[in-house]
């Protein structure tokens, strides 16, 4: 067979006589490398060309967005008008002009109404127009709009739940990258859920968005023998901070109903049954610097959530301040004798939360927490080796949740032999544990604030009393781009009486695992 490839033929010939597939593989690899090199070279050449002319004075006379038929002109103007030279007090250099335009193109990307890639053309205007200056260039951005309506139905199975869903999405409704999401799902655990939300960028800025929506759902909570029916709405403002973090400030108003109690529901759950309205302000901050959110090998994630409910003018039936923090870090572990990345990595995670009871509105007494406001802990997505909500205070067979918690996990991930480190499969060894505690009942008399403080410090001290409830084990991890799947074998090491540890296999699916 004649080899179309160049110079190093004789080596290949020799190899060809040996093992054929190996040669083929090598050949493709070389071809790929060469192609890559060529692209790089072309890029470099272009770069040099621009570099050489980078100081060339340039004025952008116009920017045209092609094929954006459904997008409002005014909306695009807000992105590109400031770039046009007529609105600048001095001419650009070529490099600056290109940078500015690509920032604009990048914003278009983030709006999620156009297909990638967005192609950019530069043209010199014809000199027939007397108003032209010699430094003028025209910019053309050619876009393809994504379909305006998307409709999807399907079924999901996961986390011991099967469900069917209908999802509708309307994009770019008013030509300003607004989107309307409508969701309905019916499942074995989430009996029914309807949700609609409308989101829009503010001032054409993809990094500043406003959202509002409403939901109505009914969810089975078998770990505490009830069904929770929710009806409510929210509004949120979301923006990117300079450091790369994402902020979200929102208001939630939800009418919750604890109903459909199981026949063996505990007195605590019966006590909390019925209606309550939560009116709360929330703030979330996330900074995600992990290389892969489902299977990180390096980087970190920091997250904090604050919620203030029922306090002062917020009203509602429940009042508390709630804070939750999460930190996750991953580092690659070098193996002596292995060149480059070994594929072995260590991830550690830490979560903690506190619910601080507050007086409602202008009342003097603070409201003790209810079951639907308290934290739950345990299960395949946080403290593995425990049943779903298996940690914390218990009444009968019900997990009651707690007001204070802390949980930590350490996972050592190894690539699987013969599968390799580039595939999203890992073998893991893990140990994790946590405590989930309810605030102690106050025995002292005094003002309300003192009482709460008096109950808080012994509860927090209790976190460190004895070993945390722990489990350890090993298992397989598959990181799908959407979620992480784990199949683990684990044994509980330390428990509190009543906590529901699990000996044996446990399967977990999660988006954000500890």
């Amino acid at each position, binding site marked *: 067979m004649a080899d179309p490839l160049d110079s190093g033929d004789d080596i290949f010939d020799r190899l060809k006589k040996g093992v054929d597939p190996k040669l083929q593989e090598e050949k493709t690899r070389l071809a790929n490398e060469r192609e890559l090199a060529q692209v790089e070279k072309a890029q470099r050449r272009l770069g040099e060309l621009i570099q050489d002319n980078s100081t060339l004075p340039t004025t952008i006379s116009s920017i045209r967005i092609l094929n954006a038929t459904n997008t409002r002109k005014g909306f695009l103007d807000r992105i590109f008008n400031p770039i046009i030279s007529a609105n600048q007090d001095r001419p650009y250099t070529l490099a600056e002009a290109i940078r500015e335009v690509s920032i604009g193109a990048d914003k278009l990307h983030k709006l999620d109404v156009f297909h990638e890639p967005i192609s950019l053309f530069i043209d010199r205007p014809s000199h027939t127009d007397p108003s032209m200056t010699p430094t003028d260039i025209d910019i053309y951005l050619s876009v393809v709009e994504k379909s305006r309506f998307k409709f999807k139905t399907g079924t999901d199975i996961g986390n011991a739940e099967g469900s069917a869903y209908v999802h509708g999405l309307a994009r770019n409704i008013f030509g300003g990258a607004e989107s309307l999401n409508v969701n309905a799902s019916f499942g074995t655990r989430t009996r029914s859920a309807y949700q609609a939300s409308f989101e829009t960028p503010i001032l054409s800025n993809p990094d500043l968005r406003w959202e509002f929506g409403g939901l109505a759902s009914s969810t089975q909570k078998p770990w505490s023998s009830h069904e929770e029916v929710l009806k409510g709405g929210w509004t949120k403002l979301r923006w990117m901070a300079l450091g790369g973090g994402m902020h979200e400030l929102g208001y939630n108003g939800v009418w919750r109903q*604890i109903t459909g109690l199981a026949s*063996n529901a505990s007195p605590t759950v019966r006590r909390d049954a*019925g209606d309550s309205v939560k009116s709360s302000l929330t703030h979330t901050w996330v900074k995600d610097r992990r290389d892969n959110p489902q299977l990180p090998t390096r980087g970190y994630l920091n997250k904090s959530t604050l919620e203030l409910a029922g306090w002062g003018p917020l009203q509602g*039936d429940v009042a508390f301040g709630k804070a939750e923090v999460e930190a996750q870090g991953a580092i690659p572990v070098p193996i002596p004798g292995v060149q480059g990345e070994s594929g072995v990595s260590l991830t550690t995670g830490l979560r903690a939360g506190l619910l601080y009871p507050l007086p409602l509105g202008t009342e003097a007494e603070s409201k003790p927490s209810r079951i639907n406001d308290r934290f739950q802990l345990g299960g395949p997505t946080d403290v593995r080796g425990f049943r779903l909500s298996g940690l914390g205070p*218990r009444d009968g067979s019900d997990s009651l949740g707690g007001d204070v918690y802390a949980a930590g996990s350490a996972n050592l991930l190894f690539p699987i032999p013969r599968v390799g480190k580039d595939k999203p499969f890992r073998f893991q060894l893990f140990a994790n544990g946590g405590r989930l*505690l*309810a605030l102690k009942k106050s025995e002292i008399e005094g003002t309300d604030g003192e009482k709460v403080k008096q109950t808080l410090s012994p509860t927090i001290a209790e976190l460190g009393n004895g070993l945390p409830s722990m489990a350890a084990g090993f298992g397989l991890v598959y990181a799908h781009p959407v979620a992480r799947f784990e199949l683990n074998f684990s044994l509980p*090491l330390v428990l509190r009486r009543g906590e529901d540890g699990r*000996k044996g296999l446990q*399967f977990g699916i999660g988006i954000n695992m500890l």
Partner: protein
Amino acid sequence: MFWPDQKSLSDLGLVGIDKELEEYHDQNNSATTADDEGLCDNPQSQERPKQSRPKTQARETSPQWFTTPQSIRRLFDKFPLRIYSLNELPQRSPRNRENNTLWIFTTNEGAQLGAPSFNPGCLKWQAYMIFKGIDFVTISSNNHASPTGALPFLLPASSTKNPLEAVLPIPSTRIERWVREKKVNTEKTGRPSDEGLEARNQHVEASVSTKQKSISKESLDMRYEAYMSLPNYRIRNAYVGPISIPHEIVEITAMRSQLYSLYLSPPNFASIVLPLYVNPSTSNTLARVALSHQLRAAAETELLKQSPIIDVEATYRDCDKAFEALSELLGDDEFFFGEEVPGLFDACVFAYTHVVLDEDLDWKHTRLREGLEQYGNLVEHQKSIVEGWFGDNASGRSRSHKKA
């Protein structure tokens, strides 16, 4: 022994069988608690089901097609390595597990004082249990908490201190039986009734006299039950002679007229239902509007269930007839059927007359009350029960109500 471990042993099997196992545990669990509850005065019987539990589980939870090798099982038994004591319960958890608790519609303050409920269905059983000398405390609750979807229900005292032992609730339909069984148990063991000793003073007497009369009383109660088991329409048709009035008919007519008067008469809805039933549920205006609407719709469907149209006049007329018949039946006796202590029938009549006559309930539309006030002996009956059996607590609800 810490039994959840025994059950976790089975988890070595696959995930798929997990649910099945859990169901089995649930059954096992409830069966045991039902056992406990039936024999709650006999301490020996407590131990039996508990001891047998781990054994049954070890046998049952290994599926046929998969048996854990002994060595592995022994290794697993070592885990968890350490078990600490229980986590503390949250602040809102009810603590009075050693008391019988009756969950009723009442205010928080009313619940503490044991004041009469403002809901006839709840008040009937509350009064009945007081008449029978049962010691209990009341808890303010709502229909969502009830196993039947309607208050009241009873949570019997937990015989152990262990909060992990579940106690099954007794719905209102089974309270009478529960009370009877409790009495039988108490008499069998020959112990003086705990309830009698601990009961508030005014009930001690009652409890003693109840015991003396218990045999004849029970046969009487049985007779009512027989009436109740008759289909409604036949009771209606048989509704002539005063002696054959079963409480079913009282309840139906009284309930109909009260349903109408409370829920479908806007002034009463605003002055009674809103402050007592709707407002305590939530402070949110929108949720209150939605709840009010739901309540009214439910009352309407309830009324329409029994007749195709809601005939206001007929409803009140029926009620008046019922009061008349009851008044005739009561005659000059203090309690119905010439008894010295009130029984279920008295509880049932009292539940309705009290709600109508209670001065603290702000009836704006007073037709029911005016109708009832014509029958002096029924008013006396209500008064003597409030004063004799609820004592000082009678106004507890109203005090807090007025404060609010």
